[in-house]
């Protein structure tokens, strides 16, 4: 009995220690990141890596998400003869919820893993220590540009995902479900408010920061060669994905709950 209580307690303490260490890491990166010298080349590289090279993955998932959403909504809503609500459901679901979350999860897999593997390998091959001996702060050089790029690029990706997702719904509705195309577009645009899109983009910024942070943190603290880097990569993707869904709920509550 006492032993099982002790293991619960130590797990809880480990959780608190890990949370504290993560917050400390993020604050250090911000503290050093806002001070010069800045590393625009590093930042630019991350912008291209996160923003540009993620476009195909995010675009494809958004397209099929929008398409399946229209189809599922039709099968459900046609039972109540409410098919006319499909454009509204698609446009709201995509901009508020599915665009940010799907893009976030895809980027977590693509970028979170890449960041953790790269920084983790740098750690186990002494490259991070080498940065320090060359008078370069690794938080400023490695972590800050990735955090900033994640924060800025995910909203841009989500904006693209929103458009492609709504287009996916339009394709299915007008070519398969027999909607009038002009009417569909009109209804989508009329119903949409700026706040819906803005809230989705704000979510995306938070998700982008989380993805980059979990990648950097796990890579930075990886230990023990190839196995350690593998574990860091797994933790980075899993923890970023879970945190995205947790923060998705928290932010939805903050933005839309009345």
């Amino acid at each position, binding site marked *: 009995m006492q032993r099982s209580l002790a293991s619960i307690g130590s797990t809880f303490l480990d959780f608190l220690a890990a949370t504290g260490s993560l917050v400390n890491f993020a604050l250090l990166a911000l503290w*050093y990141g806002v001070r010069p010298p800045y590393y625009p080349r590093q930042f630019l590289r991350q912008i291209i890596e996160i923003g540009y090279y993620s476009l195909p993955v995010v675009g494809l998932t958004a397209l099929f998400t929008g398409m399946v959403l229209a189809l599922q909504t039709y099968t459900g809503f046609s039972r109540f003869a409410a098919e006319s609500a499909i454009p509204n459901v698609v446009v709201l679901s995509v901009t508020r919820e599915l665009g940010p979350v799907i893009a976030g999860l895809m980027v977590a897999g693509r970028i979170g893993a890449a960041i953790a593997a790269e920084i983790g390998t740098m750690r186990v091959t*002494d490259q991070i220590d080498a940065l320090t001996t060359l*008078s370069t702060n690794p938080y400023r050089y490695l972590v800050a540009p990735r955090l900033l790029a994640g924060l800025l690029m995910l909203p841009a990706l989500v904006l693209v995902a929103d458009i492609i997702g709504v287009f996916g719904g339009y394709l299915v509705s007008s070519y398969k479900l027999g909607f009038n195309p002009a009417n569909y577009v009109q209804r989508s645009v009329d119903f949409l408010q700026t706040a819906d899109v803005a809230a989705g983009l704000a979510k995306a910024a938070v998700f982008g920061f989380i993805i980059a942070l979990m990648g950097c943190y796990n890579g930075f603290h990886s230990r023990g060669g190839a196995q350690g880097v593998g574990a860091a990569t797994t933790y980075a993707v899993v923890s970023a994905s879970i945190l995205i869904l947790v923060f998705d709920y928290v932010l939805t509550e903050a933005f839309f709950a009345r």
Partner: protein
Amino acid sequence: MSPATQTTTPKISVRGLRKSFGPKVVLDGIDLDIGERESVVVIGGSGTGKSVMLKCILGLIRPDAGSIKIDGTEITDLSTGEREQLMRKFGMLFQGGALFDSLPVWENVAFGLIMGRGMARAEAKKVALQKLAAVGLGPEVGELMPAELSGGMQKRVALARAIAAEPAIIFFDEPTTGLDPIMADVINELIVKCVKELGATAVSITHDMASTRKIADRVAMIYNGKIIWNGPKAEIDHSGNAHVDQFIHGRASGPIEMQVRAY
């Protein structure tokens, strides 16, 4: 060798340096003075804390207790900014080279100049190519990526990077480990040449006795977290210390017990 009898302040002065990882005591009160322009080689078996000592001096590991002075100034309690300034005095050759694999060779060599000191890239590239030439590598190597180089070439590039900013103090962590005997000798000669040309203070850690005899002015032996012997290179063969004798002759039996854990 007590500080009172010395006429000048030692370049590096370590006193009572202690570091433990959990229950394992790695450094148990290291005392070591290294004079200006002196080349000291610290020998000792694997896992005896040689690397930890260097990392403590560089500030990569925070010691539990003890004092480290550079030019008479205490450095164990420096702020991050002050430490970044201090790092400009140092060059470090890492055991595995630790070259940045995302950057071409010349940018690796020029890294400390461009990032650490804000030198213009074109100018830094010129300096980098000079340093590469100093370690016997032509300008065409500058455009290659580190992964394209052999182990010996990577070590040379890492040496060029360590000396690029003309540091006053250079650390060499196992400079010849993993190299064939000929390449090891090439690296040893380059180290001697570069240190002499820069007029730098050098601290090397190694378990390669051929390398020790080539690059050392003075030798210190670390065992069980302490410096157990310290003297000029010429005296190493008649140190009168059973541990040193066992180590330099590479005997399996003797007073030294093998370490199992890294730390």
